[in-house]
């Protein structure tokens, strides 16, 4: 997937990289690692030109790949040490750092075990140890919590959070798990068809999806019809409805509609969108009919529109 007209400025801290399959995430990661030559445009990572200084960039970045990248016949300590030597570390220093890194990722007691005896979570932790052995300024974590059980996932997320907060390092995290991205990251970059679909602070982007949630008893369908007739944007799941918060009088208008059709509103509150909701809203705006991010990630989709709307950073009107 080629990247096109991608203009990004990723700040220090934790940033989530989102996008469906084929959105260009891998291409983006390879580009900032300096492994793909950009045919046009320019970019810098940590002050180094991505076109000419790939090696210098990779020396200052820790990359944690999504897929297996460990030799199963090596023990963890030597695998991590070797990954440090490949960066140019002295073997003795690399060994010392390997001990520290494995201790940090919670494998201090298992460091002399062969990697083939490790669980998925332990392998992920070993990959993270390989990535942080030289204390990089930026850690690129590609699906760090993929395939982990809840305990290992919690630990991985906590470790990344700790790396950002205690270690003062930056993390660029590509993940399909919205909850994890939301917990670790303050900002997100959403790619779609090689273009930027959305970028910004998660809190700010969530404001796109402000809604009032009501729980209705009796006459829900009538109420829905009445609200739609009054021009409100309504999403309904059984008796729970969410109405786009587009005007200050929305609450009054909802109550008015309810009184007209004789429906009872049992609960009404401002609905705080999750990152998953935000993702779906953006994708809906791009022209996709999806029910969940899982649908989007697991099945190839056919675009009706390619560009994101202008207010989200894309080229479409």
């Amino acid at each position, binding site marked *: 997937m080629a990247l096109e007209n991608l203009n990004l400025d990723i700040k220090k801290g934790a940033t989530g990289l989102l996008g469906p399959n084929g959105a260009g995430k891998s291409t983006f990661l390879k580009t900032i690692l300096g492994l793909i030559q950009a045919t046009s445009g320019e970019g810098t990572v940590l002050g180094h030109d991505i076109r000419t200084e790939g090696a*210098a960039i990779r020396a200052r970045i820790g990359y944690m790949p999504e897929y297996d990248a460990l030799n199963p016949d090596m023990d963890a300590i030597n695998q991590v040490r070797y990954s440090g030597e490949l960066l140019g570390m002295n073997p003795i220093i690399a060994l010392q750092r390997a001990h520290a890194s494995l201790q*940090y990722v919670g494998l201090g007691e298992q460091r002399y075990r062969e990697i083939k005896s490790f669980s998925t979570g332990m392998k992920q932790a070993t990959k993270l140890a390989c990535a942080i052995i030289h204390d990089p300024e930026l850690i690129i974590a590609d699906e760090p919590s993929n395939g982990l059980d809840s305990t290992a996932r919690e630990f991985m997320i906590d470790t990344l959070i700790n790396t950002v907060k205690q270690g003062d390092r930056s993390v660029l995290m590509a993940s399909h798990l919205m909850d994890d991205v939301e917990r670790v990251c303050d900002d997100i970059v959403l790619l779609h068809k090689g273009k930027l679909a959305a970028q910004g602070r998660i809190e700010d982007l969530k404001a796109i999806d402000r809604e009032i949630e009501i729980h209705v008893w009796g006459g829900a369908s009538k109420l829905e019809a009445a609200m739609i007739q009054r021009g409100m944007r309504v999403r309904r799941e059984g008796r729970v409805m969410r109405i786009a918060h587009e005007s200050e009088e929305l609450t009054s208008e909802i109550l008015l509609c309810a009184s007209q059709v004789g429906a009872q509103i049992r609960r009404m509150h401002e609905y705080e969108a999750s990152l998953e909701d935000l993702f779906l809203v953006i994708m809906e705006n791009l022209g996709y009919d999806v029910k969940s991010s899982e649908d989007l990630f697991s099945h190839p989709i056919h675009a009706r529109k390619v560009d994101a709307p202008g207010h989200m950073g894309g080229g479409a009107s």
Partner: protein
Amino acid sequence: MSEGEGIEPQPLPSPQPVAITPQPLPQPQPMAIAPQLPIPLSPQQMQHVATEDIQMATAETPVTGQARMDTAWGSSEGDEDISEMASIGQTDSGEIFKQNYEPWRGELNPRWMRNWAILRHHILGIFKKGHRPWGIPTRIFLVLVFFASLSDAALTLLSSLIGDAEFHSFWGVNRDNLYGHVLGFFPRNVMYYPIVAALLVGGVISEDRLHGTSALYFSRPINRFDYVGMKYASVAFIQAIIIIFTLFLYYLTEIMAFGRGWAWIVDTFPIFLGALMGGVLLIITYTSIGLALSSVSKGKFFPGIGLLAIILGTKTLAIIVKNLFDREILYLLSPYDCLAHVGQTLVKTQPTYDQYSWTWSLASLIVMNAIALYVLSSRVSSMEVTRE
């Protein structure tokens, strides 16, 4: 006592100042409107019941009082003991672990140090743990071949101890024996060197594809040329220990055991150099073909068997064609035959390929190596970092 309840009217007490303390208004409490269940349930059980009801209830579900309340508010009153629930998540597992991020302010060494790390990783893996894990059968075979390659040196030493000239002429250093040490067909180029090359090249690149460890290299400041160059050098170096180093030991044994002087050394050194160059050509050719095969596969079996098939299969084919049709032309397809032909020229021993010039064999070797290196470079260029 309220007013009007007394039997006889009593004089009212004198009014006393009353201290009125403003009391805070009671906090609004959620209305307890959940129906009473016949059997008292624990909060967890009640939550479970409520969840089930919510999942079952739809807009078309018949309305009952309980379903209505459950659907709208849940069946509990919200009086669960939160501290009890919180304590479940805070169970101390007894593990002592404090996660501290330790910064590092060291300097990374330049390119040569990274390349040295790759070379060292592969070569030291033959001898000790903690580096590239070569298989035990590979290590054992390498040791056996190393000592088997020293058989001529051992017999030279034996001939010096016996003092038998005929025995020495059979095993000592001369053109034929120097050629035979490196390029002799049986046993060295049937049982020793091709199998050593097959065992070494088998997994060197293909296992990086298999395990995804190529990402470990390419996400570091290592370029493709350094990656493949160091892998090539390490495999060639191990073969050189077995072929070139034992040739050197053989030559040294003759000098030491028979007390050869400078005149003999000057006389035989060009032959030794010719054999050494033949050995270098052999190592380069076997390594190039083997690594090319390794780069197109994801396991060690195919490259190993493929290399043996190319070396021994083409040799066998050339022999069959020569015997049937008395034509040697097909030896140009055999890496071993081409090496042997060039090697005979270098050592200036009796040529066994006399129908064609040795330059044909040299050209064929160059073409074979060029094709192998092209395949190797193109496949390594396509190796992925994000997915393999």
